[in-house]
């Protein structure tokens, strides 16, 4: 990012910087970046702002493009980027969703307090690690037939109610009830199916995890009560997505759209932003396939949930309970209404954060706001927030999705070994299971930004408000 471009930035508040359309050639809307001075400075050290300006050149982009305070350089879109496209003249871009379609987070809360974990935390994490495949492992206990996979792709979590792996209450507490109606299983290629057919109920690798948490601090008592959170209560945070199936759907459609952009007269500064008009056959094909992959991801997190409930019951007793607080995506394109206008909102590493009065906020949380989860890193806090009505106009109802990476994987490994990360976590009383020391070093707390600072910006900017802070006590790393 050049100094000349940065010189055009206008501070709109202590937490919001705006780059006008004159900042770079081809920009159709301004770029707005939520960051305090420290995070703003850090974003200037990679290509995240430049990538956001590229997004602002996409046809049919509405109002402004946004970077959340955890934003960092990605490919095409920055991670932490939000852009909404008009249905009539806008485009859909697989790069604006990313390869891990509907990567997301869900929080479950138990009936137990931290005292109930005494002497049982180690066996609990051990059993979770044996029961939930992580890394690149497939699920040996659940191989889907073609017909079963079709139903997962079409119905998402809803299909798992029939299989006894989900409850109607789970669906009520999942974004879009765990099923996007636009799903078209026929738009999912055979290659994508081959990559995903044995991966349901697995967390994968990279920054994915299952974490045992304890509620450490409460900021908003009414919201915490509505979410079922109380001080010292034990919970479970699950972070995973659509696995290889979603990756292949993205690969297939970046290729497809790259081949037709010229036909639609679309010229882009970055081929990874490959896109097609929303109403074109290619755009519709992607929406059908992406929605099917999103359904697969919700079913994946629900399957992990079903297994985790069995583990909790086995180790902690049948009254442990694990009620789903909420499940929310952070890599997705959704059709949403803003001021009577239907838009396709791309969230790449950004969480939907609808407020108390939004009709898509679950009934139980009306008047409170949709739960938003911001995982920190293995050794730092994670946060529960509540969406705000103000976020609708401030960021197309979006907030951040995590702390955001600060170090590359190579730098993270040079800074500390996996063994050292393990020792540091264990010194804090955190039980860790990870198949690879290298991955532990890559994903250690030192590789991420300060989650407290990121969440503070989200709160101060009014995108979501702080409800509770969680402390990890057990980590199963992907």
């Amino acid at each position: 990012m050049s100094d000349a471009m940065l010189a055009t930035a206008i501070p709109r508040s202590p937490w919001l910087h705006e780059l006008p359309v004159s900042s770079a050639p081809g920009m159709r809307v301004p770029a707005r970046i939520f960051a305090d001075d420290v995070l703003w400075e850090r974003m200037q050290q990679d290509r995240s702002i430049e990538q956001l300006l590229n997004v602002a050149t996409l046809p049919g982009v509405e109002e402004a493009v946004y970077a959340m305070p955890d934003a960092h350089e990605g490919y095409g879109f920055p991670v932490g980027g939000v852009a909404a496209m008009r249905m009539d003249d806008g485009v859909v871009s697989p790069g604006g969703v990313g390869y891990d379609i509907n990567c997301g987070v869900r929080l479950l809360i138990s009936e137990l307090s931290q005292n109930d974990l005494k002497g049982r935390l180690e066996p609990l994490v051990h059993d979770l690690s044996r029961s939930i495949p992580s890394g690149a492992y497939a699920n040996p206990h659940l191989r889907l037939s073609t017909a079963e996979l079709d139903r997962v792709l079409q119905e998402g979590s809803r299909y798992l109610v029939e299989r006894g792996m989900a409850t109607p209450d789970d669906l009520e507490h999942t974004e879009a009830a765990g099923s996007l109606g636009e799903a078209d299983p026929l738009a999912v290629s055979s290659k994508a199916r081959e990559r995903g057919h044995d991966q349901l109920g697995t967390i994968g690798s990279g920054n994915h995890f299952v974490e045992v948490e304890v509620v450490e601090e409460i900021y908003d008592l009414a919201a915490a009560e509505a979410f079922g959170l109380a001080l010292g209560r034990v919970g479970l945070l699950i972070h995973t997505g659509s696995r290889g199936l979603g990756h292949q759907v993205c690969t297939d459609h970046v290729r497809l759209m790259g081949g037709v952009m010229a036909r639609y007269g679309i010229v882009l500064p970055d081929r990874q932003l490959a896109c097609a008009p929303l109403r074109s056959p290619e755009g519709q094909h992607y929406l059908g396939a992406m929605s099917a992959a999103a359904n697969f991801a919700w079913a994946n997190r629900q399957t992990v949930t079903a297994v985790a409930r069995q583990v909790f019951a086995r180790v902690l007793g049948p009254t442990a309970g694990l009620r789903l607080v909420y499940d929310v995506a952070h890599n997705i394109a959704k059709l949403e209404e803003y001021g009577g206008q239907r838009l396709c909102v791309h969230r790449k590493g950004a969480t939907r954060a609808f407020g108390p009065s939004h009709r898509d906020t679950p009934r139980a949380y009306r008047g409170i706001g949709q739960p938003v989860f911001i995982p920190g890193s293995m050794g730092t806090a994670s946060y529960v927030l509540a969406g705000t009505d103000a976020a609708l106009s401030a960021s197309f109802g979006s907030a951040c999705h995590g702390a955001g990476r600060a170090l590359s994987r190579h730098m993270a490994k040079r800074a500390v070994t996996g063994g050292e990360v393990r020792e540091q976590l264990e010194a804090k009383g955190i039980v860790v299971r990870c198949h690879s020391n290298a991955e532990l070093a890559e994903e250690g707390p030192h590789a991420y930004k300060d989650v407290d600072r990121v969440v503070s910006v989200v709160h101060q900017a009014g995108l979501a408000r702080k409800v509770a802070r969680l402390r990890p006590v057990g980590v199963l790393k992907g």
Partner: protein
Amino acid sequence: MRRSVIPKTWGRMTMASCPVPEHDFGEHVGEERLIVRGATLGQVFVEAARGLRELYGELDQPTDDPSWRTIEVDAEDRAALLIEWLNELIYLAESEHWIPISFMIDAALPTRLRVHARGVRVASAPSQIKAATWHGLRFDCHDGMFEAEVILDV
């Protein structure tokens, strides 16, 4: 840069013009930046496959003897061809747990690549690499050497 020991199985390549095919990893805050160099297009594609293999890290034990297969990809130019090649290898690693260990280039043209690859099947898929991306993709030629750079989503 990591220098490869050139295997005998590269029989059809022009070794005289190929002293140092090599690959390395550049910095990227979220993903992996793979940089490859070679004197021929074929060397670049093979070296890219070696870089991918290095990212997979330690593999499970092979489940059977090495086997040969022919991999063929097409694209509109050599940069796009590199993406297609890597994405095909990623797909084979994840869906069949098949990892190539040596290569014989049959045809390496700017828009078409045909490779006979010898590989092993391992018990479980290697650590996940999601895809080769187009962002920042380049495939240059300077002074008779090709250099390509591609960002892998990990």
